[in-house]
């Protein structure tokens, strides 16, 4: 058998594939963060809570209304996105004239409230959500048994990331968005409703987080703390990638998923910290991040 540093190549391929799957959620989450940051200049600390809400809403739809996974994949992001719009309209928009740190603090407070409310209502031991009938079971790839659902997650996450990227690079709305990021005053002078653009962007970012949450629902135990555990890693991903480019944040997400996957094979004890170590190294060498512009 061919081996690589003592690990059979076949096992390694399996682990890389798993890493890619985890990278998919990092990518979708950091994409949403980057979009929001680009236009609003705030770090959305509630991103993790919105991810958690996405999973919970999917579960609630199934439990209370019998709405299946496929519909939930549309409805849950919509619900959380509207919730995001409300937050932006009622609270966030008061803060744009102030130091950007206040946006971070406000969204941190919101994250605490959402987490607390779900804890109060559903406890912490977690809820269970089965993958849709169509995607249960798996295929034998020769080097590993791949559950169908995980394959679906990678494909759909990639598709969404590419679609968002294309939407921003190739459409008129995307062009406006890019222009508003660069110079909001100028865009406003052209008669574009910038506040609406901002509200929509925050809502869309929140919806992306919720979408990642629905994708994660059948994989993990749905519990109120699932968001806060992943968000800190995603922050590190964002710092490594730099938030200058959409494509950059997506690539970094997938890339770090792979690195983490490899660490789980060669030095599993470090797999929770490897991303932070990479972050420290990147900061030393290229403070603006891999794809970032110097500030």
């Amino acid at each position, binding site marked *: 058998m061919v081996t690589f540093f003592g690990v059979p190549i076949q096992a390694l391929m399996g682990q890389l594939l798993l890493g890619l799957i985890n990278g998919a959620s990092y990518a979708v989450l950091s994409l949403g963060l980057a979009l929001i*940051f680009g236009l609003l*200049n*705030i*770090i959305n600390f509630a991103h993790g809570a919105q991810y958690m809400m996405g999973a919970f809403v999917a579960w609630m739809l199934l439990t209370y209304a019998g709405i299946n996974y496929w519909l939930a994949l549309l409805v849950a992001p919509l619900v959380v996105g509207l919730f995001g719009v409300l937050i932006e309209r009622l*609270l966030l928009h*008061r*803060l744009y004239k*102030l*130091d*950007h*740190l*206040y946006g*971070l*603090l*406000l969204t*941190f*407070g*919101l*994250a*605490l*409230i*959402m*987490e*607390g*409310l779900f*804890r*109060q209502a559903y406890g912490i031991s977690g809820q269970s959500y089965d993958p849709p009938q169509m995607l249960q079971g798996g295929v034998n790839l020769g080097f590993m048994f791949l559950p169908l659902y995980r394959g679906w997650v990678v494909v759909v996450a990639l598709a969404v990331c590419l679609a968002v990227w294309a939407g921003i690079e190739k459409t008129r709305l995307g062009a406006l968005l890019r222009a508003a990021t660069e110079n909001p005053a100028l865009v406003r002078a052209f008669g574009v409703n910038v506040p609406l653009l901002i509200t929509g962007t925050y809502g869309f970012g929140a919806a992306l987080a919720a979408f990642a949450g629905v994708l994660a629902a059948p994989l993990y135990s749905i519990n109120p703390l699932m968001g806060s555990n992943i968000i*800190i890693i995603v*922050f*590190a991903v*964002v*710092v490594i990638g730099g938030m200058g480019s959409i494509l950059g944040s997506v690539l970094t997400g997938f890339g770090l998923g792979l690195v983490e996957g490899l660490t789980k094979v060669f030095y599993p*004890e470090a797999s*929770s*910290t490897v991303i*932070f*170590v990479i*972050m*420290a190294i990147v*900061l*030393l060498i290229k*403070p603006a991040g891999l794809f970032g512009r110097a*500030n």
Partner: protein
Amino acid sequence: MMWIAAIAALALAAPYAVYPIFLMKALCFGLFAVAFNLLLGYTGLLSFGHAAFFGFAAYVTGHAMKEWGVTPELGILAGVAVAAAMGLVFGLLAIRRLGIYFAMVTLALAQMVYFYCLQAPFTHGEDGIQAIPRGKLFGVLPLDDMYVLYYVVLAIFAIGVWIVWRAVHSPFGQVLHAIRENEPRAVSLGYKTERFKLAAFVLSASLAGLAGATKTLVFQLASLTDVNWHTSGEVVLMTLLGGMGTVLGPVAGAFVITTIENYLADIGAWVTIIQGIIFVLVVTLFRRGIIGEALAFVERRRRQ
């Protein structure tokens, strides 16, 4: 001066009216928040990883006193020294980025410290270091006496706050202020702002370590709670709530949050929800915090 005398008298008499352990806890968090505010309020840097210094110093002090049997003052000194060294490393990395990035970098670095504490044998994982002997300060003052301990903690608190006060009202503090208001301008005036920021970071980390080390003496334990990122969030909340424009504001915030945590303990997850609501209210409506709003109120009355 009247104010200071009144507060001092209140602090000296307090343990006879209020439960001393609670007071000491609030004082430790108060000092922690004051140290943190040196960065947020006076330098304009939001660190989201201050629990690392607070909690790790607690571990170092606890380990030194329990396993090596050193006296309390040496134990605290060891905790502060390690916190200062960590502050230097964190600071060197974090000040390479500004604003929001700074917050995320400190958060990520603190998370590394948390994972290290979880895995390292000397911290005893989720058990924590327990039953740490309080010993005798300088070999004479028996800290097992609740009142002696209280006055020692009060003295440490006063020294810590005094250091911050001195720093803020010195030429060093003036430069920090200039950095907060307009960093490019400070640079153009010829200040090496990075060095000043680093110095402020190290001082803040050391004092956060002092607060954590003192807390170890009070509770005789050091645990993962204190290095968790929730603690980093709490100290931000205390500072905001109390008011970051004043040296003593964060202390007021610390007292309120500690009170909520201890006296509303029967209501479970609501503690988190209340903390979140306070965050939102302070950020949207009362950005000056309790003390800031009170001072503004007094000022308005005086003008009338």
